[in-house]
């Protein structure tokens, strides 16, 4: 009976253990799956296309007054819309109920008629021109009050101090563009009825100045002004665009260029004043950047290839204006080529999906690099970074006035038939597409397309640059240098310890190396960044010297050993190599360090870093990949070493005996028998080390300068994916593009390690099947 009971208990325990283990396993799998799911959910919205949907529409023409509108806008919460009408009054309309709220007239415009108006990007400041040749400004303001139960918004209008005379002949102003300076002064450019272009500058004190701008007699059809008031652009009916510097109030032609075969119908600077969007009569929309140019002159007698990638070849004596891609920096020492500044030139960088009819208006987003274009066939939302276009609404009757809501979450449009549309714009990540993440993008201010990671700037005028390649590259670069350093050391060490070293040494060395793995990586990173990096910076030459003197000492030692007749040689085969080798290596080390200053002075002009730059344009960054290779290698070596050593030791002696008995030497046996037989383990060791190097965060974070550059040079740093996540997570607003991209980076990192581990498993299994049935 007793044994029966005992059996039951055993059975019970067995069952309990089984459930517990199963539960544990399932929990692990579920939590990994849950983490993946979470990462996926956080990252997927990046790829949602922006969408616009009508949120309300009101017959403003009936609810307000039947006069024509000149400019529109809305408050921050998209509760109220306003319309500047042709009498100069500002009408407010509730977007919730369609109710007309109030209308504030401009007393200075009594009896006058507005013929042209233009709204600023970031505020509701509006420059206008009148039918009698006057120009002025007004600003619509919204104040939100949260003191009551519900949010209340009060609307007000602040009219400009005075009207200015744009045309002494008092003819109507046709086109207008303006900017409100930070000092309160204004700049207004106006096209008069006779086609003449004038620039009006007014200080806050009321002094004003008017100056004509010459566009060579072309008929100007569109105007745009930078919001800083520094540059004026005029587009003409023949497709020409004229650029004026207006900084000091006197328009000075900076350049002219042909932007289109058709007439220019709309011009606008995007938020940040860097991108000029040009719309034409045929409906084409294009983004133009102002790019610095230089004149390169080949002063030599031979043909000169300045830039192979861009096909820039200069004949002897030839002078050519080219985009400034830092040729002067790259060619610093070349006496045959000279460079002269050629100023900024607008270049067409991106074309967008065309409208079917002339582009009538362009409205830039106040928050990012998006904009809306209007044409007879509808409204389209575009994004400059991605080059993508998304239809907002088809068929708006007539010539709509468009504006973004202040938070860029809506678009207000007033159609020619007096209907006011309020669109909700759902564009959380318009700046991210698969292409911007993985292909070269021509960003504002750059001389050409490039892979750039620069996630945050101070303001929303900054164009975030989210190319993932610099990060992926950084991870690969760091890993490569770490592996380059650690694999040979770890494998040779394992080979020595398993095949040659005396057992006593092995019993000491192995646990010590395993202990290395227990050092927190933050300590390694700290040492690398704060001790090794400055040390190497100070003694770079000594580092180089040791690189040569150590192996040299070894070779000399071996050579001497070979030269001495073998019966006179001390017997070092009995595992005392180490005793003999240590002083030799120490001597090599000492010699390298001692000779370094002399060699540096003799061969490299006393400054190895300067010499490196002179000879190879290699810039030396103290936090570079040598340091990373050492530090990361330090973390990787114990992993590779331990596993490889185990694998090598596990090779059955029967195989080595067979090899010896077949007249193979020790070396041949190690290479042809031991290594292949241990290869699954060695391979797994390398792959595990690789996985560690790829995922390691603290070391790459602390030992590199974290500069996201794409350059294989061992003398500068990089930014690895893991480090990017660690560094940038605190500055990434939850739900923003950067936040989600960091999740994507994490996902890619996971894919990397997953791929490495899977590959390791597969190959290692194959090798094992091939090599390990003894």
């Amino acid at each position, binding site marked *: 009976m007793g044994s029966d009971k005992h059996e039951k208990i055993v059975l019970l325990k067995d069952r309990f253990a089984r459930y517990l283990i199963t539960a544990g396993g399932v929990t692990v799998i579920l939590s990994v799956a849950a983490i993946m799911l979470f990462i996926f959910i956080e990252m997927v919205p990046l790829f949602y296309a922006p969408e616009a949907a009508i949120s309300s529409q009101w017959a403003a023409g009936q609810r307000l007054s039947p006069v024509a509108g000149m400019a529109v806008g809305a408050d921050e919460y998209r509760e109220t819309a306003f319309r500047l009408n042709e009498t100069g009054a500002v009408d407010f309309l509730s977007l919730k109920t369609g109710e007309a709220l109030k209308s504030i007239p401009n007393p200075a415009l009594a009896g006058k008629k507005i013929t042209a108006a233009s709204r600023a990007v970031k505020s509701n400041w509006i420059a206008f021109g009148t039918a009698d040749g006057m120009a002025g400004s007004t600003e619509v303001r919204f104040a939100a009050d949260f003191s009551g139960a519900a949010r209340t918004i009060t609307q007000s209008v602040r009219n400009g101090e005075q009207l200015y005379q744009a045309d002494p002949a008092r003819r109507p102003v046709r086109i207008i563009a303006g900017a409100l300076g930070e000092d309160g002064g204004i700049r207004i450019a106006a096209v008069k009825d006779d086609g003449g272009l004038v620039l009006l500058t007014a200080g806050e004190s009321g002094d004003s100045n008017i100056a004509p701008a010459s566009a060579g007699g072309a008929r100007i059809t569109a105007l745009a002004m930078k919001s800083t008031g520094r540059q004026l652009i005029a587009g003409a009916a023949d497709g020409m665009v004229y650029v004026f510097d207006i900084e000091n109030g006197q328009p000075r032609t900076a350049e002219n260029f042909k932007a289109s075969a058709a007439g220019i119908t709309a011009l606008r600077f995007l938020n940040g004043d860097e991108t000029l969007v040009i719309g034409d009569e045929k409906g084409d929309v294009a983004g133009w950047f102002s790019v610095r140019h230089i004149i390169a002159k080949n002063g030599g007698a031979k043909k000169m290839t300045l830039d192979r990638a861009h096909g820039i070849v200069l004949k002897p004596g030839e002078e050519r204006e080219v985009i400034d891609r830092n040729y002067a920096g790259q060619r610093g020492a070349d006496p045959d080529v000279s460079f002269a500044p050629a100023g900024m030139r607008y270049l067409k960088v991106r074309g967008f999906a065309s409208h079917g009819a002339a582009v009538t208006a362009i409205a830039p987003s106040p928050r990012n690099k998006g904009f809306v274009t209007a044409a007879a066939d509808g409204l389209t939302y575009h994004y400059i970074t991605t080059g993508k276009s998304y239809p907002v609404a088809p068929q708006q009757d007539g010539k709509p006035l468009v504006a973004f809501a202040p938070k860029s979450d809506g678009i207000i449009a007033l159609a020619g038939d007096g209907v006011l549309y309020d669109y909700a714009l759902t564009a959380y990540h318009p700046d991210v597409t698969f292409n911007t993440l993985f292909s070269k993008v021509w960003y504002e201010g750059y001389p050409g397309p490039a892979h750039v990671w620069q996630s945050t700037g101070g303001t929303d005028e900054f164009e975030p640059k989210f190319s993932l390649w610099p990060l992926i590259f950084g991870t690969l670069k760091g890993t490569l240098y770490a592996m380059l350093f650690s694999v040979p050391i770890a494998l040779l060490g394992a080979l020595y310890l398993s095949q040659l070293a005396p057992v006593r040494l092995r019993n000491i060395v192995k646990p010590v190396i395993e202990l290395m793995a227990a050092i927190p990586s933050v300590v390694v990173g700290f040492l690398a960044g704060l001790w090794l990096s400055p040390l190497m910076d100070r003694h770079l030459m000594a580092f180089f010297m040791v690189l040569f003197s150590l192996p040299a000492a070894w070779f000399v030692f071996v050579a001497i050993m070979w030269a001495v007749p*073998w019966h006179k040689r001390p017997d070092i085969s009995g595992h005392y190599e180490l005793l003999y080798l240590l002083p030799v290596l120490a001597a090599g080390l000492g010699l390298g360090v001692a000779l370094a200053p002399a060699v540096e002075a003799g061969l490299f002009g006393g400054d190895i870093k300067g010499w490196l730059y002179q000879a190879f344009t290699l810039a030396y960054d103290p936090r570079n990949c040598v340091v990373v290779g050492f530090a990361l290698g330090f973390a990787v070596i114990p992993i590779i070493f331990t596993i490889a050593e185990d694998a090598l030791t596990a090779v059955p002696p029967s195989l080595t005996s067979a090899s010896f008995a*077949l007249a*193979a030497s020790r070396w041949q046996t190690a290479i042809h028998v031991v290594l292949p037989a241990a290869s699954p383990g060695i391979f797994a060791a390398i792959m595990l080390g690789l996985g560690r190097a790829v995922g390691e965060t603290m070391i790459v974070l602390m030992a590199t300068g974290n500069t996201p550059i794409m350059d294989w040079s061992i003398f500068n740093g990089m930014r690895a994916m893991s480090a990017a996540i660690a560094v940038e997570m605190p500055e990434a607003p939850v739900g923003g593009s950067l936040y989600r991209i960091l999740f994507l980076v994490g996902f890619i990192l996971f894919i990397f390690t997953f791929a490495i581990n899977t590959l390791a498993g597969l190959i290692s299994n194959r090798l094992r099947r091939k090599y390990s*049935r003894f």
Partner: protein
Amino acid sequence: MDIPMTAPMDAAGDVAVHVRKLSFYYNQSQQALYDINMDIRRQKVTAFIGPSGCGKSTLLRCFNRMNDVILNTRMEGDILINGSDIYKEGVRLEALRKRVGMVFQRSNPFPMSIFDNIAFGPRMRGMKDKAVLGEIVERSLKQADLWKEVKDRLGKSALDLSGGQQQRLCIARTLANDPEIILMDEPASALDPISTAKIEETIQVLKEQYTIVIVTHNLQQAARCSDYTAFFYMGKLLEMNVTGRIFQKPSVKDTEDYITGKFG
């Protein structure tokens, strides 16, 4: 000398291995062989018999210096192969082991293809010519009576062969080195009777060309396939003679006891 040298001493040309006053120690002082003197005849099969632990394998390993791998061993005396001392300074181990091949108790094919296993030795000596290697592989496999069984799967892993085939592969691998002497340490002890019979047949064929030393536990085997038999006991060579004599009329009491199964 208390060990009777019963084997007739012929002309030196007939002796492949000459062992003189050989003593062997493990761990510096643990003596495994005591003052062995013997001659092993050319192109004959010599069997080493004796109870476990009496030093047969140790002596065999002295012939191709496989004991060198073991730490803390010491040897006294001389071994002359074809008249020259193999423990002399300057003897190259690889050259010696090419001449003196060895087959182990447990088959130990490399985790490689059958072809690569056989070609291993020649390749280690720098032979690269595929055609020559192919000939060597075919000849060796034929000599080891394995050719018919494996000629269609030379590229397949040697580890897929049966135990008996693996052991014959190891013999073929040794033959590929074109040795003069083949040492076999209980080559059939882990095999079934049919495989054992095949190996014994092979030995009979091989002795036409090679000098063979075989350690065996199986007295019938020694009786069947050897020309000479040496009986070891506690590290000493007690008796060595023509096989027939040893089995019918052993001159030492211990030999008789062992052969008749009184111990061992």
